[in-house]
């Protein structure tokens, strides 16, 4: 997975050509968004300028502990500068917050729909973590 070097972030967190990660149930833009973050099957990484996509699979789906922490670290390592999912647990939230990466909440639809909504600035930033989820 490539990180995007030299990203300039604007005030609203939408920098030029930044990498957006969207939790997904499948590997394409037409897959449904996965409302789970820590236990999402896949993430679609989208370069905001070119809209080039790649798939990131994280082995945390079956993790017995700390799936959210594991997923958050993998997304940061992959270079994600914004994350979109259904919700975000308290531990993953702490990791993203410490890294200055915003998490946006989407309610459903395809990855394409969700990305478009983010583009239109329609998705709220999650300011409070959801409840911890246990295996």
């Amino acid at each position, binding site marked *: 997975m490539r990180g995007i070097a030299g990203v300039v972030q604007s005030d609203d967190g939408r920098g030029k050509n930044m990498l957006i990660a969207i939790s997904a149930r499948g590997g394409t833009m037409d897959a449904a968004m996965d409302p789970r973050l820590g236990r999402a099957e896949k993430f679609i990484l989208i370069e905001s300028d070119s809209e080039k996509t790649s798939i990131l699979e994280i082995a945390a789906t079956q993790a017995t502990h*700390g799936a959210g*922490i594991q997923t958050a670290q993998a997304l*940061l390592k992959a270079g994600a500068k914004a994350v979109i999912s259904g919700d975000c647990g308290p531990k993953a939230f*702490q*990791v993203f917050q410490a890294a200055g990466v915003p998490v946006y909440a989407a309610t459903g639809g395809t990855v394409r729909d969700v990305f478009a909504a983010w583009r239109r600035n329609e998705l709220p930033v999650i300011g409070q973590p959801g409840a911890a989820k246990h295996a």
Partner: protein
Amino acid sequence: MNSEDNTTTGKAGGFGRPAPWIAVASGKGGTGKTSVAVSLARAALQAGRRVQLVDADVEGPNAHHFLGLGEPETFPVEAMLPRIDPARCTLCGECASFCIYQALAVLGDRVMVFPDMCHGCEGCRVVCPAQAIENGSQEIGRIMHWRGEDFEAWQGRLHVGQVLSPTLIRELHRRACESASGYDLTLVDSPPGTSCPMMAAVRGANRLVLVTEPTPFGLHDLELAMAAVRRMKLPVEVIVNRSIGDDAAIDDLCRARAVPVIARFPDDRAVAAAYAEGRPMIEAGAEWAKQYDDLRRHLEGPC
């Protein structure tokens, strides 16, 4: 922590206790472990024995409600928590990838530690190539201690959000073990279930009593509990609580596993009434006092 001290924590099958040490456990919750343990302690006291009661149900200790005790002395129990030295840390990520509990996360410029994920194993400190991790600590719970004339009570209380029940239980046992030789009997009230806390509570006992009830759940969880402790090679005996006369399924299981049923307590409204007033089973009437004295005699004999 003295987790490596086998004389106090007891090895599996190690019979490491200095005096009779009986664990009361159950695969299923709510079968009457605490009632049995407290009633048995009282029966032994009434027979002139010196007794220690250890409430090892650290996630929900409640034996003290039956005992009417005063203010306990308390001891904090701590577990190791990694402390990162940012001057030495190279952010290599070895610690985080080693930790299966995800208690560490390495970000671009720092390492985050999640105390309530940490199991205190010190593995991160060992694998760190930069010696950037030191042993810090966190308080995971407390031990309460009451001392009477011929009676001592111990209780472990895990702090909310903490996960290290077995560590707290081992420390509880270590302390109780130090005074066990002054007692005729130590009784351990185990946490319910068949996972790590129950195993830690039962470990090192000379004898194990499993309390069950004649329901499909009681039977199922009794079988699980028997399987869980099998490798400890402990003498196991069963008490059927709230029997309504037909315990055939439990009897069949016990026969197949060669585990004796040593008591059968009837389903009695008087027990529920006593319980609602905070009194243990043994105080539910003369018949109950006799039942518990019989049980006490049995448990003072050979397994």
